[in-house]
């Protein structure tokens, strides 16, 4: 399986072998595709130990000298443990640095709440100078790797190892921060999703002809995104359904609401995501189990779309 972590890191490894001055600063995380690099170029992989705050600050110091630096560790600790460092050492100083977080949503599911990654984008959306990439396919992972080599400001790259989809990615998509994964003949409903939920929604739409005929699908992979362009895509549908494996507060659905509201466009929006008003699950279980609890499994998503279509 070609997954997004390898798609990203293999590009970086290749760039280092090609002579790019790139450094991975890591806190207790590696990857099999880095093994040979670590033997051939040991100085390009700097381990700070299990110390996420140190990770961000040390990586910032390396970036201050002009190096291309990737701060790499497991989510959620990258963001939550070191948020003040991200805010002050990276964003406030506008350092061109990559925050590479491995993990998204209800993963790893059997570790419980401490390891869930449900509000990282919600928190980071408010960060100045930072662009977020919620990597939703391997082509996007490859694009972000190329971008890493020519950064002018910091980026947060959120990689879900279970994402192995491949979608077309155009220059226009990259400029806008989203892409249309499916365009229906009759544009009645628009589903807007992010991360692995884009794959899930695509599978749901492909499974039924009435969905294929009536439902658009947009994958928002970057925050911020081109708000005007998104409004242009959404303004002619009569209902929007947003789908995210994130907390609802401040997440994708909120961003869509804000964008429409600022543009004076009033279209009903139904947000599907992790609704914390129901409390966080204290159960251990599979990712699929958790998604089902919050109505984010394929059947639940299909039901919501079907109801939206029949409500018309």
């Amino acid at each position, binding site marked *: 399986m070609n997954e997004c972590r390898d798609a990203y890191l293999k590009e970086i490894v290749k760039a280092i072998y090609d002579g790019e001055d790139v450094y991975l600063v890591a806190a207790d995380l590696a990857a099999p595709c880095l093994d040979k690099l670590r033997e051939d170029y040991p100085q390009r992989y700097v381990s700070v130990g299990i110390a996420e705050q140190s990770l961000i*600050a040390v990586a910032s110091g390396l970036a*201050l000298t002009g190096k291309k630096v990737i701060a790499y560790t497991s989510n959620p600790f990258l963001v939550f443990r070191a948020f003040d460092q991200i805010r002050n050492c990276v964003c406030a100083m506008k350092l061109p640095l990559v925050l590479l977080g491995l993990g998204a949503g209800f993963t790893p599911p059997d570790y419980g709440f401490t390891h869930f990654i449900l509000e990282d984008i919600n928190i980071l959306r408010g960060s100045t100078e930072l662009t977020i990439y919620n990597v939703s396919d391997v082509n996007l992972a490859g694009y972000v790797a190329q971008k890493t080599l020519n950064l002018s400001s910091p980026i947060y790259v959120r990689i879900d190892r279970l994402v192995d989809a491949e979608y077309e990615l155009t220059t226009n998509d990259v400029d806008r921060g989203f892409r249309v994964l499916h365009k229906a003949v009759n544009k009645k409903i628009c589903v807007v999703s992010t991360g692995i939920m884009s794959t899930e929604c695509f599978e749901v739409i492909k499974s039924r002809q009435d969905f294929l005929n009536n439902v658009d699908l947009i994958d928002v992979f970057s925050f911020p995104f081109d708000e005007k362009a998104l409004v242009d895509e959404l303004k002619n549908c009569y209902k929007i359904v947003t789908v995210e494996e994130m907390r609802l507060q401040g997440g994708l659905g909120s961003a869509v609401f804000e964008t429409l509201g600022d543009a004076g466009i009033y279209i009903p929006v139904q947000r599907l995501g992790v609704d914390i008003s129901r409390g966080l699950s204290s159960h251990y279980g599979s990712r699929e189990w958790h998604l089902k609890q919050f109505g984010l499994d394929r059947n639940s998503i299909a039901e919501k779309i079907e109801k939206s279509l029949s409500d018309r």
Partner: protein
Amino acid sequence: MLKKLKELRKTCLKMSHAGKDGNLQSVFSSLEILYALYNGVMNWSPQIATSSERDYLIVSKGQATMGQYVVLSDLGLFSTDELMTFCNFDSRFGMQADRTKFPEGGIENSAGSLGHGFPMAVGVAMAHKIKGKTNNVYVLAGDGEMNEGTMWEAAIFATSKKLSKLCLIIDDNESISKMLSIGSLEKKLREFGFAVANCDGHNVNEIMTNIKSLQKEAEMNQSPACLIAHTVRGYGCQTLMTDPSWFHRFPNDEELKNLTKEVDTFCENK
């Protein structure tokens, strides 16, 4: 005290008066350290302020920022007139430095959140070590800042990576003992593997001499260095040394006159 240091203190008082803000006690505590670094220790001048050959100073103790401004201005990087815009609307000179406002160099890092500067400096030193470069990297930290866990994460990393070009200078004005005393900094840092020395943090010559000998020891041991500079909050002005309210306060017109006079008449043997 060197006449120059008195002049710099008086400039600080004027800035604080003009900008209606200031951490004068912290600034006066650090001023000799900053002066010594830029005037005899570091390979640094306004002409090489953005050159890759320069030595770096990362100010981890953000409250000392005003002191860095005046020392750099004294070396010609900024005009005195511009300094007097301190804390005015749209000034480049705030209470805590903003690196992005100084394309001409001098201010290497934005400061304000304690415990960040030292690990950042460790990253700078690591970058130089990887490239086989010999730039020295200095960090100015406060003793109170040593309560932050990140300072010790950085210390572990620095010794593990044998960052012998890294020199941590702790402005030890005994803040930590008023909050959460952690015992002997010297003993702890030695245990962490640092070359450590103590000195009078208000004696410029002593600071310079100690840093130079520490650097030799660090090179020999392949370890980072730490100078614990013993200082007094508000040093150089009797009122600032004795009245704690001056930690965060600015002088009014009358106080400016009185404090300036105190600086002028300050006698080190008092």
